[in-house]
């Protein structure tokens, strides 16, 4: 079927992820949404590389995965430490600094 549809899907996923970031409170979920966005990007890469018939996109997808993994490590570390110190993973609770 037409690879362009994959692009639409990717865009959709990206949007879902983005809106997830905007509306969900739980840091973990927010973070997962971001991961979703990254994966949307992957999908887009792959789809394009399929269209162009060169492998760059697919290679990039691999890089992205690695980066995403690294982000998970760092991100979870931060979120967990925050959770432990204030017993809540809600992003909205972390609003000491404002104005």
């Amino acid at each position, binding site marked *: 079927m*037409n*690879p*362009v549809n994959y*692009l639409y899907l*990717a865009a959709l996923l*990206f949007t879902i*992820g*983005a809106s997830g*970031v905007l509306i969900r409170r739980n*840091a973990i979920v*927010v*973070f997962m949404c*971001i991961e979703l*966005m*990254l994966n*949307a*990007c992957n999908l*887009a*890469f792959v*789809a*394009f*590389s*399929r*269209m*162009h*018939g*060169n492998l*760059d*996109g697919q*290679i*990039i997808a691999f*890089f*992205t995965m690695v*980066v995403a993994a*690294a*982000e998970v490590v*760092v*991100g979870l*570390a*931060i*979120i967990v*430490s*925050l959770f*432990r*110190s*204030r017993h809540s993973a809600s*992003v909205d609770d*972390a*609003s*000491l*600094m*404002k104005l």
Partner: protein
Amino acid sequence: MSTTAVHSLWTTAADPIQKIDAPNIEYGQLAPTLIVIGAAVIGILVEAFVPRRSRYYVQVFVSVVALAAAFAAVVALAASGYGTTKAGIAAMGAVAVDGPALFLQGVILLAGVLGVFTFAERRLDPVAHGNRVDSFAAQAASVPGSDSEKAAVKAGFTTTEVFPLLLFAIGGMLVFPAANDLLTLFIALEVFSLPLYLLCAVARRKRIMSQEAAVKYFLLGAFASAFTLFGIALLYGYAGSVSYATIAQVVDGTVETVNPALADTMGNDALLLIGAAMVVMGLLFKVGAVPFHMWTPDVYQGAPTPVTGFMAAATKVAAFGALLRLLYVVLPGLRWDWRPVMMGVAVVTMLGGAIVAITQTDIKRLLAYSSIAHAGFILAGVIAMTPDGVSSVLFYLGAYSFVTIGAFAVVTLVRDAGGEATHLSKWAGLGRRSPLVAAVFAVYLLAFAGIPLTSGFAGKFAVFKAAAEGGAGALVVVGVISSAIAAFFYIRVIVLMFFSEPRPEGPTVAVPSPLTMTAIAVGVAVTLVLGVAPQYFLDLAGQAGVFVR
């Protein structure tokens, strides 16, 4: 989708896999980055194998030596003409070695050295259980105020990991402005972002805030980089390649289409424009331009001040470097589309930063907003789209980074029982209590305000001049107005320090070790030198002002 493309895919699959010849890497030209990254790795090993007592010293030594060596390498490269005549693409088109890259790498490395100095400062906090402590948590993993933390403090633990983290960040930053394809750009972005996220979280005092800062920075940063990545994807989709050169050619339409599949995506400018916008947005986030600035104040306030200082200086340099390259190398053909938009961004950034800063009550947040305003000024130079524009931005970045590090270094000195006394009200009468520190800080503030005879003025003049010559006179006017607004709050701080009576319970000024002193001193020296006799550095920036494609 045309069938030809599909067929072509089969054929590539069907053909016998031709052997891939090993890439040739110009290690010499990549030396700066390699040295720093290598040192970072060594740092990790040090953490693993060197006894705790001596880690701190080893780490500091390694970092400083590495950065110094890297800087030497940069100078060597520049001296041997890689900045100008021999400028070229290295690492199979992944990295550009040219004037802007080398100049900015030099700046970043110097900022890095000063950063290491401030990181290594151990005289400010009161001695805990017989061992000197720096501004980082004894044990980042332990919950603030918990027994484990007390134990860690008692045992004299220190988070010496910050040094390798710093080195990794610097490594990423070195690549960022030199990145010559979108993939490298993205990787570099992550490589310097992730360590910074961590560094934000490990403050010794006010750790809750520091962690909050880290979370915000991380989530928003990741969010932004997701956009960047998607943008990259779209650009790739448009041009069928992530290499700057190719994309540029495609944009200019000077490419001879090798494969027909490219034809229909190439025509589709929506991909190009949206993609470009998203990538640019990611970079604007890093430079802290309105409306992508909102992380700045919180993170600057929450992060350990040495980190803030380094981040404020180096991140801006790296990000603007990348932005310049992107706009000047990849998207010059698109000038007429993005220039007006960027002008809008610059305007709101200048005004927004200046106006909101007026009512700030925390010195770190104040500096954060001022950094936003400055981002706006620099953008004005970026928009010029002239060689002068490039060199003026380079000069501004160089000048600005030293002022910033110095200013934050001074902030670390003003302390009371609760650690740094960052609330402005506590700075009242500082000039009476310790004139020298206050005077130094005043110099920095005046430089921020762009008063003549300071580097700030030279930089501001350079970018405004470039902008005016580039036909963005309106920007100059707005810039001038917002500088006037900005002057107000810089002056407010000076008034506070010199003209108001010191509070009896006011903060004391800690006497730092030579490390921080050097950081501050260098800052002042550069500020004044660049203010009085900027010609040499302008020349430097001028020669470095040409990108290689």
